[in-house]
């Protein structure tokens, strides 16, 4: 391809046969994102240099926005492992058209979550104790192991895609490496699926085992409380549509078609099906919680809610509006095929999972367990928001570069024939 006069300066780096916006436009887009990034880095610096006293966290809310954010992005990043599982292990071929994006989103979510965790723990320089002095009885140990391992798996999955960059791909060694990694991808997808299932589960298990916290505590199977399974199911019930939402957002921003409707619809169907399974068990779980677990702790259902901030509306939203409704919209083909309803369902689905992670984190801690204690309200401060937005901005940057320079969407050329 000969360089056209009007081609952007960095056109040589673009994926083969695809056009991209001008470098100037690209940089203008990166500017606000970088500002958010810098703001987040400043917050991170504050936290690391002076301690967590600068955050809105306190002794009642040892977990707050950050943990909610972590759990949410990890759930939504589940699109990576689940799509990988379906694509490489179960050989659902059409998913190859979105698997790259799923991997990148997964990578961003997991690396971002780890970044936030580094800020969230009080002694980041001791983080390796999680391996060296591991307590095998702790759900968090399982989380630490699986998240770090899975993050490495995601890096390995991301590498071959990065190596497909046009200039890099010219180097024989890298080309061969990329190819070989591709061959092994099913193996990594399998490892990834295993690791991911476990830590999605143990993130839920983290809450379910807290028998001192009636809001979160659940009985379960063997060493795993029911929340273990619910978290896995809810993650696979929302991750795929989150990937679709990201793809659609990218389409909106770039003005180009990236993934065919058919693929989106398949992803929606998968998520919808899993969401149905999840919601079924979630209702069962909630019923058992109300009928058995809470009375055993001497507490009533009404005691679990307080005022507006911790009102029952959250539960209605989570279970019905953001649970049952997207189930119906995604499973029923006629509804799913109407883009407006599809996107609505996808958004509700993701929102429901975020609400779930939020109440499991914050409401669990806000609820007074000692009868003479009181409900307390948690408000995250700017440091927590900035650090969370840091991850969002980091994700935007990673996606922007990946899209601009890597062949992320196999269908792109075909869908944008001029």
């Amino acid at each position: 391809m000969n360089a056209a006069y009007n081609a952007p300066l960095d056109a040589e780096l673009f994926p083969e046969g695809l056009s991209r916006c001008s470098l100037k436009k690209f940089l203008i887009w990166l500017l606000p994102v970088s500002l958010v990034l810098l703001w987040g880095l400043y917050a991170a610096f504050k936290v690391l240099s002076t301690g967590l006293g600068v955050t809105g966290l306190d002794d009642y809310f040892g977990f707050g926005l950050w943990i909610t954010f972590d759990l949410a992005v990890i759930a939504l990043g589940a699109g990576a492992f689940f799509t990988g599982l379906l694509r490489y292990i179960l050989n659902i071929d059409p998913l190859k058209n979105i698997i790259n994006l799923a991997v990148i989103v997964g990578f961003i979510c997991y690396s971002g979550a780890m970044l936030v965790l580094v800020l969230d723990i009080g002694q980041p320089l001791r983080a390796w104790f999680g391996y060296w002095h591991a307590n095998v009885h702790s759900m968090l140990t399982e989380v630490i192991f699986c998240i770090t391992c899975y993050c490495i798996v995601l890096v390995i999955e991301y590498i071959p895609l990065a190596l497909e960059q046009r200039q890099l791909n010219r180097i024989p060694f890298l080309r061969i490496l990329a190819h070989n990694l591709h061959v092994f991808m099913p193996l990594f997808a399998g490892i990834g699926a295993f690791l991911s299932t476990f830590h999605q589960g143990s993130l839920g298990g983290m809450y379910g085992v807290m028998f001192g916290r009636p809001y979160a505590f659940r009985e379960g199977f063997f060493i795993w409380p029911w929340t273990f399974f619910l978290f896995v199911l809810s993650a696979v019930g929302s991750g795929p549509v989150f990937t679709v939402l990201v793809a659609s957002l990218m389409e909106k921003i770039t003005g180009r078609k990236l993934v065919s409707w058919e693929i989106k619809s398949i992803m929606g169907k998968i998520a919808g099906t899993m969401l149905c399974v999840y919601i079924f068990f979630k209702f069962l779980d909630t019923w058992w919680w109300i009928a058995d677990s809470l009375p055993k702790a001497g507490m009533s259902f009404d005691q679990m809610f307080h005022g507006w901030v911790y009102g029952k509306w959250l539960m209605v939203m989570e279970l019905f509006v953001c649970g049952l409704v997207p189930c119906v919209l995604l499973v029923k083909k006629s509804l799913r095929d109407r883009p407006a309803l599809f996107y609505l369902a996808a958004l509700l689905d993701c929102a429901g999972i975020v609400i779930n992670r939020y109440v499991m984190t914050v409401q669990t801690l806000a609820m007074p367990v000692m009868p003479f204690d009181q409900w307390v309200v948690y408000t995250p401060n700017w440091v927590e928001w900035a650090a969370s937005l840091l991850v969002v901005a980091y994700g935007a940057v990673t996606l922007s570069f990946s899209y601009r320079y890597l062949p992320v969407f196999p269908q792109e050329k075909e869908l944008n024939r001029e």
Partner: protein
Amino acid sequence: MTTELKKFRIRWGMVIDVDKCTGCGACMVACQAENNVPPENTSNRRKSLNWLLVYELSNGKSFPGHDLAYLPRPCQQCGTYPCASVCPVIATDKNEEGGIVSQIYPRCIGCRYCMAACPYHARYFNWRDPVWPAGMEKNLSPDVSVRPRGVVEKCSFCHHRFMQAKDKARVEERDIFDLEDGEYVTACAESCPNGAIVFGDLNNPKHRAHDLAASPQAFRLLERLGTDPQVYYLSRREWVRAQGDNRLPDEGNRG
């Protein structure tokens, strides 16, 4: 997943008589001084370290039927601990003879999972580096290490005093697991002029705490969650005992 109950020959425990506590706070100050908990000038009560915290309880009635009580809350040193089982790095454990839940500051990574798991709010995080007003660090106690920012801490039943009492017994060639009543007491118990806090081995019939814990007026906080605390409370007031645990309206008072 639940934690198994660990059994020890000695069970250090506290029996706190709520009917004797005037809420003066001497125990809280003594605790801070003994355990090198830094003073804090913050109006945010949820961010200040209180290994021992005195709660004010009300019977909820209007004047003149109103009654109030003060309830000091140290770490409950649960037999079935919600906290230590969740620690990813074994920075907290319940292992030594005596059954005190340990907290090891150089091991703690500050994830705060234990704080989330503890229903008593007995665990505190060092949100900032500890600071004493200039010169006051000279008055630090020699017995308890000063914690840096970023780690969780909690009441240790003044465990260092157990170490010291054992050393004294060793030098005197006595059995370190059969200390006399009062040979090892916590700073709070020692400071209370009202004698509201009695500390001793709950398993040792020679210790006062042993008998007091068996009193019909004794109760523990949130017993039905199954935490099996080593801290007992006493009150002859029915409403105070009722506030020790959650009960559904149809369960009566001692559900």
